[in-house]
């Protein structure tokens, strides 16, 4: 496939790894923010190509992983109502809430449907006017345009039976939270390419300057990631801390301004809770007053409940790059992808799940 295959050439990957080895003179710890990149790093064995002195730690950029337990409980509460068709992306339906998951609810008779795009949920609402259709609008900035478009379409079509359970998270405040933690080990970042495709790169320059960290906006294929790492290591070695864009074919400084225009209309910035991490100021989106009528939490009058994570799980530390999955006593034992205890084992892009899937395969 064009724009994919060219970036998977193993020979070029070796050469890039060699180039990194040539410039590196000391230990560096670099975080890839995005779960899609974590997945590619573990899948293609990128850490194994790197010199020991370059350590990758995995960031909080998996929206499935950071959706709070309370939110999943709310999804379950809505989905199990008789008058509801509950629509979700596939990777959310396996995530355990404090008592059950959406797939389990479906097995017990709830109408839970997996959709490829939120726009399908709007079509389902148009076709089922006697039902309430709720879309679980989970995502980072990348998914914002699709989620915003769904809500906007429902409004323009006058669909009173459509609403969205919004769990949108924002990347720059998460980077800020990681860098302001006193025990952070992160010295450089690969920023998530597709988040920047939508939002542009300007939010990162103040972070690079404030914390003295290089931030390289990076794509998702193996050569993208290796090139992003090369540029990050080079900056670290030269004691520079700038924003660079490795992923120029898909990211420009301003981002997608047409998408941003609708995002600004549909969403406002709010404080939100991140599963495994806790509350981060101004790190999420909620619907603006103009679109509030489509807020599922309001429509169904759901209250916030306090729920707690399993005590053994260290996913909060994994998401902040402070620990690796294998440091967790439950890893691969009480906790595995088909019976996950924590956020990062749930989604295929969570660090624990990626390690479980690929590390074990290679060890075998």
């Amino acid at each position, binding site marked *: *496939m064009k724009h994919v295959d060219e970036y998977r050439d193993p020979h070029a990957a070796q050469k890039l790894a060699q180039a990194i080895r040539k410039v590196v003179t000391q230990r560096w710890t670099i975080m890839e923010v995005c779960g899609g990149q974590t997945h590619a790093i573990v899948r293609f064995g990128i850490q194994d190509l790197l010199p020991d002195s370059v350590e990758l730690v995995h960031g909080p950029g998996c929206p499935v992983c950071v959706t709070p337990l309370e939110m999943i409980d709310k999804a379950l509460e809505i989905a199990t109502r008789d008058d509801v068709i509950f629509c979700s992306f596939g990777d959310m339906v396996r995530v355990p809430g404090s008592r059950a998951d959406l797939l389990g609810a479906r097995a017990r008779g709830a109408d839970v449907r997996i959709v*490829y795009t939120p*726009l399908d949920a709007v079509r389902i609402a148009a076709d089922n006017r006697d039902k309430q259709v709720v879309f679980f609008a989970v*995502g980072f900035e990348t998914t914002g345009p699709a989620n915003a478009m769904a809500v906007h379409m429902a409004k323009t079509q006058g669909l009173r039976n459509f609403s969205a359970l919004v769990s949108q998270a924002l990347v720059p405040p998460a980077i800020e939270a990681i860098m302001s933690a006193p025990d952070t080990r992160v010295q450089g970042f690969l920023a998530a390419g597709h988040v920047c495709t939508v939002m542009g790169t300007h939010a990162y320059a103040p972070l690079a300057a404030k914390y003295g960290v290089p931030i390289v906006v990076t794509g998702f294929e193996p050569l993208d990631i290796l090139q992003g790492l090369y540029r990050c290591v080079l900056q670290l070695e030269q004691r520079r801390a700038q924003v660079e864009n490795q992923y*120029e*074919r*898909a990211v420009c400084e301003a981002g997608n301004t047409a998408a941003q225009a609708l995002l600004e209309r549909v969403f406002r910035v709010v404080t939100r809770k991140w599963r495994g991490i806790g509350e981060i100021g101004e790190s999420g989106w909620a619907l603006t007053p103009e679109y509030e009528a489509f807020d599922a939490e309001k429509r169904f009058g759901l209250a916030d409940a306090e729920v707690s994570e399993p005590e053994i799980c260290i996913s909060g530390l994994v998401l902040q790059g402070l620990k690796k999955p294998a440091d967790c006593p439950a890893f691969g034992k009480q906790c595995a992808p088909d019976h996950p205890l924590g956020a990062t084992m749930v989604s295929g892009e969570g660090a624990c799940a990626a390690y479980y899937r690929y590390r074990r395969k290679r060890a075998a």
Partner: protein
Amino acid sequence: MCLATPGQIISIEGDDALSRRGQVRFGEAVRDACLAFVPEAKEGNYVLVHAGVAIAVLREDAAARALDLLGQIE
């Protein structure tokens, strides 16, 4: 979950900015995609599609430059 897939636009319909959509080919598969956020996209262009919505037109000149650079690494 933030993965987006590059595909080639094979047809475009709808002239209202927010209802613009089209058929996009990903390897063997062809899918419908919302093109509202890529007003500059034309048939034949490659777009990055996430959750059924195109979020960027891929820049061929930038891709060529990146591959060129990769070819020069020793």
